[in-house]
C-alpha cells in the first residue's frame, strides 16, 4: 500500500460521510464523529507503518508533479496528527457548538476536515504550481465553509465574510504571481523554475515581481504581514476547532508550499536569491512585530492567540530566510518543520483549554481565566505549560524552536531581523505571562470546579508531554529533519 492510497481513503471517507449526512439523516452525530475520528486514527497508524517501510512508492501517474521526500513525509504525518486532534476537539466542543449551527448539525465539521487533510497531504508532496494551486484552493474553499459554519453566531458570519474576501484576494494575487513566474521562467514545476533561475542572462525584475506576488499570496495562508489583519477577527469568530485547524494546519500547509517555493527561488546561483531572502526577512520581521505588539493590549484570549499566531508566522518566515544556514544542524526547511512540530502541541493545548472553558459556559477573556488553578489544577497546569512554551521559555518545546531560528539568524548575520525577533520575544513574555497570572489569581470568576473526561485527560497529557519532551530531548526530531530531502527522492528514482 502506498501513502497515496491513504490520502484517497481519507478523501473518500469524507465524501461518504457527506453522502450519509444527505441521505440518511437519522444516523446520529456520535456515530459520524466516531467514524471520522476512527478513520483518521486508522490512517495515522497506517501512515506510520507505510512511512517507515516503503516511503517512496507513488503511483506512476503522479510522479510528474508529486514527489515523496522526507519533508513531504514529515508534513503528511503532521497534517494527520493535526486533523486527528481537530476532530477530537470538535467532539469536545459539540455541546456548545451545536447551539450556533443550523438545527444543531455538526456533520460537515466532521467530514470536511478529512477532505482538507487529504488536500493538505497532497500539497505536501506537490512538485509543481498547478498541483499546489488546486490543493490549496480545495483547502481554502473548505475553510470558507468551516469558518462560517456556526452561522447563528454573528461573529462567525463576520469572520466568514472577512476570511472569504481576503482569501479570494490572496487567490488572485497568488495566480498573478504564478503567471509572472511562469512567464519569466517558462515552467510551472519547482525543479524547472530552479533550473531556469540559474541562467545568468535571465532578467531579474519579472521573476521578482512574480515572486513578490507569490509570497504575498502564500503569506495569507500562513498569516504573514501584508495579509495578517484577518487573523485575529477570524480566530475570534470561527468555532474553536476550526480556529485550531486554521492556526496549525493551514499555517503548516502554507509553509510547506512556501518552503518549496523559496527553495526553488533561492537555489544556488539563483539570480534572485538575495532579493527573495531580503523580502522574507522584511516580511518576517514585520510580521513578528505586527503580531507581538498589538497582542499586548488584548483582552480576549482567543484574539491573543490570534496575534500570537501571527508572530509565530513571523519567526517561521525568518527561519525560512536563513536558507543556506547549516549551523543549527538543519537547513531552513528543517528549522521551519521543527518549529511547526513544536507549535502544534502548544497551540492545540491552549485552544483545548479555551474550548473546555467555553463548554462550561465561561467566556474567552483573560479575566475569565481567573481562578482556573482552583477550578481545575490540571487545566491550569497544561495551560501554563503551553503558554510558557508559546512564550519560548527554556525547557519547553517553544524555546528549542526559537533557538534554532535565532541560531540561523546569527549565522547569517541578519542583525536587524534578530533585533525585531528579540523585541517580539520580549513582548511575548509580557502577554503570555499576563494570562498565566490571571489563572493563578485568587479571585475567581466562577467557582464551580471543571470535570474532565478520561480521554480528554489522556490526550491533553500526551500533548503536554510532547511539549516537555521536545523541549528536553529534541535530538530525534532534529535527526529526522536533518536528512537532506534528496535522500528519499533518490530512492524514488
Amino acid at each position, binding site marked *: 500500500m502506498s501513502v497515496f492510497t491513504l490520502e484517497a481513503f481519507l478523501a473518500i471517507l469524507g465524501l461518504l460521510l457527506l453522502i450519509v449526512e444527505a441521505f440518511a439523516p437519522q444516523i446520529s452525530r456520535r456515530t459520524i464523529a466516531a467514524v471520522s475520528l476512527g478513520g483518521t486514527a486508522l490512517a495515522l497508524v497506517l501512515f506510520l507503518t507505510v512511512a517507515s517501510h516503503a516511503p517512496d512508492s507513488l503511483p506512476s501517474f503522479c510522479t510528474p508533479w508529486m514527489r515523496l521526500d522526507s519533508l513531504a513525509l514529515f508534513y503528511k504525518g503532521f497534517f494527520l496528527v493535526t486533523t486527528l486532534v481537530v476532530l477530537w476537539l470538535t467532539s469536545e466542543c459539540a455541546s456548545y457548538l451545536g447551539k450556533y449551527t443550523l438545527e444543531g448539525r455538526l456533520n460537515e465539521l466532521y467530514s470536511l476536515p478529512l477532505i482538507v487533510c487529504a488536500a493538505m497531504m497532497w500539497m505536501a508532496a506537490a512538485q509543481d504550481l498547478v498541483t499546489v494551486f488546486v490543493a490549496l484552493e480545495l483547502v481554502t474553499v473548505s475553510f470558507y465553509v468551516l469558518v462560517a459554519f456556526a452561522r447563528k453566531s454573528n461573529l462567525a458570519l463576520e469572520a466568514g465574510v472577512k476570511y472569504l474576501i481576503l482569501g479570494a484576494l490572496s487567490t488572485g494575487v497568488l495566480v498573478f504571481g504564478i503567471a509572472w513566474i511562469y512567464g519569466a521562467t517558462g515552467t510551472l514545476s519547482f525543479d524547472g523554475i530552479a533550473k531556469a533561475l540559474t541562467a545568468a542572462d535571465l532578467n531579474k525584475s519579472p521573476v521578482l515581481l512574480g515572486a513578490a506576488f507569490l509570497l504575498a499570496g502564500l503569506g495569507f495562508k500562513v498569516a504573514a504581514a501584508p495579509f495578517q489583519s484577518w487573523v485575529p477577527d477570524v480566530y475570534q469568530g470561527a468555532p474553536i476547532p476550526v480556529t485550531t485547524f486554521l492556526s496549525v494546519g493551514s499555517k503548516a500547509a502554507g509553509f510547506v508550499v512556501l518552503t518549496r517555493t523559496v527553495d526553488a527561488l533561492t537555489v544556488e546561483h539563483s539570480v534572485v536569491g538575495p532579493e527573495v531572502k531580503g523580502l522574507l526577512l522584511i516580511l518576517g520581521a514585520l510580521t513578528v512585530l505586527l503580531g507581538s505588539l498589538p497582542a499586548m493590549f488584548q483582552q480576549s484570549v482567543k484574539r491573543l492567540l490570534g496575534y500570537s499566531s501571527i508572530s509565530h508566522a513571523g519567526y517561521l518566515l525568518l527561519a525560512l530566510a536563513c536558507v543556506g544556514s547549516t549551523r543549527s544542524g538543519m537547513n531552513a526547511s528543517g528549522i521551519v518543520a521543527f518549529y511547526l512540530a513544536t507549535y502544534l502541541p502548544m497551540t492545540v493545548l491552549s485552544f483545548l483549554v479555551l474550548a473546555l472553558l467555553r463548554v462550561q459556559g465561561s467566556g474567552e477573556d483573560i479575566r475569565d481565566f481567573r481562578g482556573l488553578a482552583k477550578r481545575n489544577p*490540571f487545566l491550569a497546569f497544561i495551560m501554563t505549560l503551553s503558554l510558557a512554551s508559546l512564550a519560548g521559555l*527554556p525547557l519547553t518545546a517553544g524555546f528549542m524552536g526559537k533557538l534554532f531560528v535565532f541560531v540561523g539568524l546569527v549565522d547569517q548575520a541578519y542583525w536587524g531581523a534578530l533585533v525585531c525577533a528579540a523585541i517580539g520575544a*520580549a513582548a511575548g513574555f509580557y502577554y503570555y505571562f499576563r494570562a498565566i497570572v490571571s489563572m*493563578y489569581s485568587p479571585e475567581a470568576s466562577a467557582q464551580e470546579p471543571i470535570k474532565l473526561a478520561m480521554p480528554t485527560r489522556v490526550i491533553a497529557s500526551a500533548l503536554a508531554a510532547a511539549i516537555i519532551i521536545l523541549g528536553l530531548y529534541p535530538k530525534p526530531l*532534529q535527526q529526522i529533519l536533518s536528512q537532506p530531502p534528496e535522500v528519499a527522492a533518490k530512492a524514488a528514482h
Partner: protein
Amino acid sequence: MSPLEIVILLPLLAALAVGFGAPVRVFSVGSALINLGLVVGLVLNFSATGADKSGYAYASARTVLENPAISFAVGADGVSLILTLLTVLVAFAAVWQISAEKPVIYHIAAQLITAGAMGAFLCTDVFFLYAFHELALIPTLLMIALHGHGDEEHRRAVAWKTTVYLGAGSLVLLAGLAWMVLEYSGGQKLTFDLTALKAQAAASPLPVEKQASIAFVLLLGFGTLVSLFPLHSWAAPAYASAPTPIAMLHSGVLKKFGLYGLFRVALPLLPQGFQQPWVHQALLFMLLGNILIMGLVTIHQKRLDDVLANSSVMHMGYIFLALAAGTEVALRGAVLLMFAHGVCIALLFSLAGRLRSQLGTLELAKLGGLGSHAPAFTVLFAFGAFASIGLPGLANFAGEVMVFIGSFQSFGAGSFGPLQWAVVLALWGVVMSAVYMLRAYRAIFQGSAQAGLFMTDPAISQRLPLIVLAAVLLVAGCCPWLLLGLMKTDLATVVETASSAVQEAAKAAPAASH
C-alpha cells in the same frame, strides 16, 4: 543516573505530586528532608573522594542535541556543592514553615524554585544553567504578583517592576551568554558545554577587548539578578512584599545564582575580561554603590522587612569585591560568604514573616519589648542579626575577613591602587551593618511593648528548622574549614589563569607608558 540528577528531579516531582493533589506536607516537606539528607551525604562523600579529572564529581551527561551541542550535563565541584547545600537547607526551612492554611501553590512554587536553583548550580551546560534559573524565576514572580504582602495595587506594581528588571536582566544575560558561546565556537559547531568551552578558552583565548566587552554584558546580566548597584532597585520592594518562603528562597538562594554564574562561567572563560581597567573600575564603582549607598539607605528604613531587604542588597557588594580582586583567598571567602549570607538572611526573613503574621506590622517604631515575651525567638533573631553584622564565631565573619584580606593583598601587591581604596571604603559597610542591625534588634526586643503587640515563642516543631539554620551559622563560623576544604582546587585554576593574565597586563602597562 547521577545522584545529582535525583537531587534536581526530586523537588520537581514533589511539585507535580502536590499540584495533582498528593498530601501536601508529606510530599513537600518529605522531599525537602530527603533532599537535605542526600546532599549532606554527597558533601561528606565529596570531601572523602574529591573530584575526578574533569574537575567535577558525580558528573554525567545526556546529549540533548548534537548540533548545536547541548547536553543535560551535571557535575559538582566544591563551589556548586556548597551552594547546593545552602539550597537544600533553606528549602527545608522555607517549606517547613509554610502554615497549613496557605494554598497549595506556596509549596509548588517553593519546590519549583528549589529545583530551578539546584539545576542552575549543578548543570555544567550553559544552556541548562540558564534554563533552570528561568524555571526558578517564574514562580517567584508569580508568587509576588498573586500572594505578596500589601494591597493589590502596590503588589501589582512591585511584581511588574521585578518582572521587568529580572526579565530584562535575563534577556541581557542570554544575549551575553549567546555572544560568548558564538565567539568561542568560531566557525565550528556551537557548543554549550562548559568543559568544552573552557578547553576552547584555554587553547585560543579571545582578544582582551572582546573579553572585556562580553564580561561587561555578563556583569550587567548577572548583576541585575544579584541586584548590583544601579540595577538593584527591584530587590528591596520585591523581598519586602514577597511571601515569606519566597523571600527566603529568593534572597537566600536564587539570588546567589548571579554570583555563581559569574564565578562559574564568566571568570574561567573570560579571565582577562574583568581585569581590563574600564570593566574593573566600573565594577568597583558599582560595588561601592552597593555597600555605601545601600548601607546608608538601609540605615534610614523604618520597617524590619525593608531593613532586611536592603541589607541583603548591600551585602552583595562584598562578594563583588572578591570578584574584582580575583585572588584565591578572596574568591573562596566570597563563596563562604554566599553560603553564610544565604543562611542568615533566610533565617531573618523567616522570623520577620512570623512577626508579621502574629503582630500584623513590622514598623520598628511600633514594636518593642519582645525579648521578655519570646526568649527563644529573640535568641534566634540574635543569631541572624549578629551573623549579618559579621560577629566572629558566626559564619559571615570568616567569609568577610577572607574577602577583605584577599582583596587588600591582591595582585598588584605593594601598590596601593583603586582596589585597596575600595577595600578601605568597603570596611565602613561593616560599621553600617552594625548600626542598622543593632538598631532594629533594640527596637524590636528591648524597651516596652505597645498595647496588643505581644507575641509568644513559636512551638518547638516550628522552631526546628530555624534552630538548624542557626546551628549551621554557628558551625560554619567556628569551623569554616569544613566548607573551605571542599573547594581546594576548583577556584585555584581560575585564579591562576586570571592572575597570569593580569601580571602580563601589568607588565605591558609600564611598557606602553614609556
